[in-house]
């Protein structure tokens, strides 16, 4: 059985700022990032849907130590967002000075776009990653 939404397709769409997810035809819930089975009921009958990318910020962490080859990105902020459609998505919080980030950000509304990490020695190619911006 093939993945309904393999990484390659999800990645290609996110590079164009389009966030894809999977709707379960058994329970109706949304899975994103994609998996082979619904993350709510493990159903295998899924269909691809485009998500709004709207959600609220649940957590974030500004990184001051980076993995090999990524020192040029420091400081960068990794964030967890709960999308309006239900799933949680990991990405980078951008367009805000890390020194101005505090717990007051939790619960704030964000929108999602895509940016590309070009990959490194141990990756097998570029990886699109979600980036979140606060809704003014």
């Amino acid at each position, binding site marked *: 059985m093939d993945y309904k939404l393999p*990484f390659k397709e999800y*990645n290609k769409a996110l590079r164009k700022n389009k966030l894809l997810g999977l709707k379960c035809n058994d329970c109706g819930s949304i899975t*994103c*990032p994609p*998996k082979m089975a619904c*993350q709510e009921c493990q159903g295998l009958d899924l269909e691809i849907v485009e998500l709004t990318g709207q959600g609220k910020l*649940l*957590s*974030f*962490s*500004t*990184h*001051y*130590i*980076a*993995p*090999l*080859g*990524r*020192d040029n*990105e420091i400081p*960068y902020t*990794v*964030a*967890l967002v*709960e999308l309006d459609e239900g*799933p*949680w*998505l*990991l*990405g*980078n919080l951008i367009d805000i000075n*890390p020194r101005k*980030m505090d*717990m007051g950000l*939790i619960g704030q509304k964000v929108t999602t776009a895509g940016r590309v*990490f070009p990959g*490194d020695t*141990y*990756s097998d190619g570029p*990886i*699109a*990653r*979600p980036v979140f911006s606060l809704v003014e």
Partner: protein
Amino acid sequence: MRKVVILGLGHTKFCFNSPKTGVEMLAEASVEAILDSNLNPRDIQSAYIGNVLGTFCEGQATVSQFACDDIGCLNIPAIRYEGACASGSIAVREAFMWVASGFYDVVLVGGVEKATAMGTSLATRTFCMGTDSKYEFGTGLTFPGFFALLTRLYATQYNLPLSRLKEQMALVSVQSHKYGMKNPHGQIKQEISVDEVLKSMPVCTPLNLHDCCPFSDGAAAAVLCSEEAARKISSKKPVYISGIGLATSGKMSSQYKYLPRLRARELAAQQSYQMTGFKPEDVDVCELHDCFSIASFIAAEGLGFFEPGKAGEAWEKGDADIGGKIPINISGGLKAKGHPIGATGVSQLYHITKQLRGEMEENGVQVDGARVGMIDTLGGDGCICNLILTTDGI
């Protein structure tokens, strides 16, 4: 199933920049465990070895077979087990199965890592391989970052001001450093204050350097055998592996609503509790996976020692110290003893077995009358192993 006894123990010093190779460290800990068992290397029937990054640390895969050959355990099945930072305890669980089933009577279990050889940047990169390479690593998420995200979720979930939570978390590092001073195998020999933790450099906000365990080199080993074989070989007070549990989870976003609790831990602990009939209050001493200060709170709650959101208060009251409700990480934990990831689970087994044998008096860290001990080890996004050791062989 047969009862399984921990017969002998071995442990190298945990340190930065070991002059020994990974194979040498593993071999030295293994021979110590075999001699402590009153056995010879040729008595070992099979070996189960935790090792994660030998390929990156030294360009060395399958450390298990080279170490076993070096010490004279010739031509035995000697296999490497990998479950990120839980590799050592996963190897113990595997070894337990082979003895409990009756297939082998006497086996070696061990673990080794030489992570500091990589330097911080490469070590950080290779540890990130325990996250999802496609859906997490692109963001630059590291493991301190993983637990930093859980820290803010924890503060929100349990309605704790972050400043209060950070002070509570600092107490974990303070206690671990206090006991690291007393561990002859420990990596960090330095007392630390709450203020020093709070003022140490930020690694991944809100975690500072002293909320994080170090990269480490070191090895640990043990000999496991059937109860019948133990009676013939050794007159030492037996310590049994009575409960085992193992569960896994996927990437962080896939664990979503359950966070900051870690379901794999709770399931693994339930397996051990069910197997032994024990409850959390029956456990006398515990070594748990304190890779980051907040990880201790989440673990202690997940194992059932404290109510969710209350672990910080427990550390404040001394409930996790000797004399408290449940003494935790009296070895100094991953934070001060060190965390050579392939060895960590076996090192935890070493320290709990010593506690149950009553052999920690000389270090001044014996938990009086300890009869039931627990080990909890976490690897990657979610591979969590639990062991219950007893003096009574339940």
